[in-house]
């Protein structure tokens, strides 16, 4: 009967296993190569002056001081804006509007927003914040744009975290005469804190790496000063990297690689923290 197969089921199984292991290995190898390649290219430039120097026409004197400052400021305002709105809408969708039409409509919206290319958010920010509202090429414009961009991530992870809180806790709280909001604030939110925090960190990590929308809303590549308020012009680390990458001189390629090392460190630390928190939190709630 086995002769009817072109390849016997047994060798099919073996061949697939080899192929799949190879695929997995190659993908992980790519990650390794990427890290090593960037490490080799950039490590020579990592020194104190790289962090404290302003951008310059000479690659070896150029640093990421303003880019780092811009990035921190940008992230600060992004999180400040996105956090309350994102968490409150997450709570509303999960705890209050589970069945009504409005909530369903909003849900479709969020799932759609999560799939909108980030560069399109840039166009929205350009027209809405930079031009119409007149905020110009400021940190505020960038932060508002990024806030809209990461909002779906915060909403979805807030909902997931809240969903994991067992109904018995809510019932216990209602049973004691608590109102809906009291239950949410004193029972549901504390119990889902770990999950919500994980979502916030992951969305921050996403915001750190975003480049395209910031270019569109006018983050500048050359900013020789540190922004002091939300209305100042700014640059950000990914923008600085992009700018260096597109220059022909080898010195700037080295700078770009060094900038990437710093950017990756930020990203990995944030993601690592999120994964750590998630695992810890799951262990706690998995009773």
């Amino acid at each position, binding site marked *: *009967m*086995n*002769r*009817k*197969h072109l390849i016997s*089921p*047994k060798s099919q199984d073996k061949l697939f296993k080899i192929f799949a292991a190879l695929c997995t290995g190659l993908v992980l190898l790519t990650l390794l190569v990427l890290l090593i390649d960037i490490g080799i290219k950039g490590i020579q430039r990592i020194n104190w002056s790289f962090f404290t120097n302003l951008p310059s026409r000479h690659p070896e004197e150029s640093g990421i001081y303003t880019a780092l400052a811009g990035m921190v400021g940008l992230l600060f305002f992004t999180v400040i804006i996105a956090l309350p709105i994102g968490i409150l809408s997450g709570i509303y969708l999960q705890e209050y509007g589970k069945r009504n039409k409005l909530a369903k409509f909003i849900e479709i919206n969020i799932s759609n927003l999560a799939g909108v290319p980030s560069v399109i958010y840039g166009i929205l920010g350009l027209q809405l914040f930079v031009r119409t509202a007149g905020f110009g090429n400021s940190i505020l414009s960038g932060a508002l744009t990024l806030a809209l961009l990461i909002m779906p991530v915060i909403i979805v992870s807030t909902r997931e975290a809240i969903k994991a809180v067992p109904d018995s806790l809510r019932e216990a709280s209602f049973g004691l005469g608590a109102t809906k909001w009291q239950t949410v604030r004193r029972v549901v939110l504390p119990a889902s804190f770990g999950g919500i925090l994980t979502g916030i960190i992951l969305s921050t990590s996403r915001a750190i790496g975003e480049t395209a929308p910031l270019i569109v809303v006018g983050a500048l590549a050359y900013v020789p000063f540190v922004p002091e308020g939300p209305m100042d012009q700014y640059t950000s680390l990914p923008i600085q990297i992009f700018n260096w990458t597109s220059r022909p001189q080898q010195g700037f390629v080295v700078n770009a690689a060094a900038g990437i090392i710093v950017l990756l460190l930020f990203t990995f630390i944030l993601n690592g923290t999120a994964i750590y928190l998630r695992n810890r939190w799951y262990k706690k709630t998995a009773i």
Partner: protein
Amino acid sequence: MVQKDSYITEGSPYGIYKLRVEGLNLYYGTKQALKDISIKIAPNTVTAFIGPSGCGKSTFLRCFNRMNDLIENVTITGSVMVDDIDIYKNMIDVYQYRKKIGMVFQKPNPFPKSIFENVAFGLRINGESSKSVLQGIVESALRQAALWEEVKDNLNKSALTLSGGQQQRLCIARAIAVKPSVLLMDEPASSLDPISTAKIEELIYQLKDQFTIVIVTHNMQQAARVSDKTAFFYLGELIEFDKTDKIFTNPSKEATQNYITGRFG
């Protein structure tokens, strides 16, 4: 414990027992789930495994087709002989071997394919692609499973459109289409309504002519109705194995007596 056995069919090529287990122990990690089990099952009989939940009866059933291989950390010692071949010791191809042992599960689990493709599945994975061969076998399997009349006009409809009882009979048809010699049934009627259950029980009685059937059930009336012999399990041990009549009217062990009279379980 097993005395003269009147259920043995003449002409069985493999000794007088179809299934023979000796000194079987099974561990999940370090936890022992089955303790030193020995049993002999004659061909063309229906054997019922009864006992309270968690007693190991389902786990034991799954030893016969090495379904426990799918769980990590399971170790098995002792021997399970099917047709006098030890299925754990000899270098058998477990996938080829499983084709000889049909299995029907607690909940009907048809594949999300058409009725026809469900029954044809086992043949297709054996490389059978001739439409006429498939049609013949699918029809006869569905007839044997007493489902043919109900579905013959809708063979290309999704199996998920069938009722629960029909789905379970489809799963039986799917199992017997590959012509196994043993049919393992893990609480096959537990999720069904009484009428569907009656149909399944009637079917089991008819299928006995061609298969050696082992059925796990938590329903003692069912065991009494369909089986020739009954094995009572408790806390991972085989307490008593005898003719069904005897187990239900005059068991030798006190634990059995307590269970069938409903004192625990």
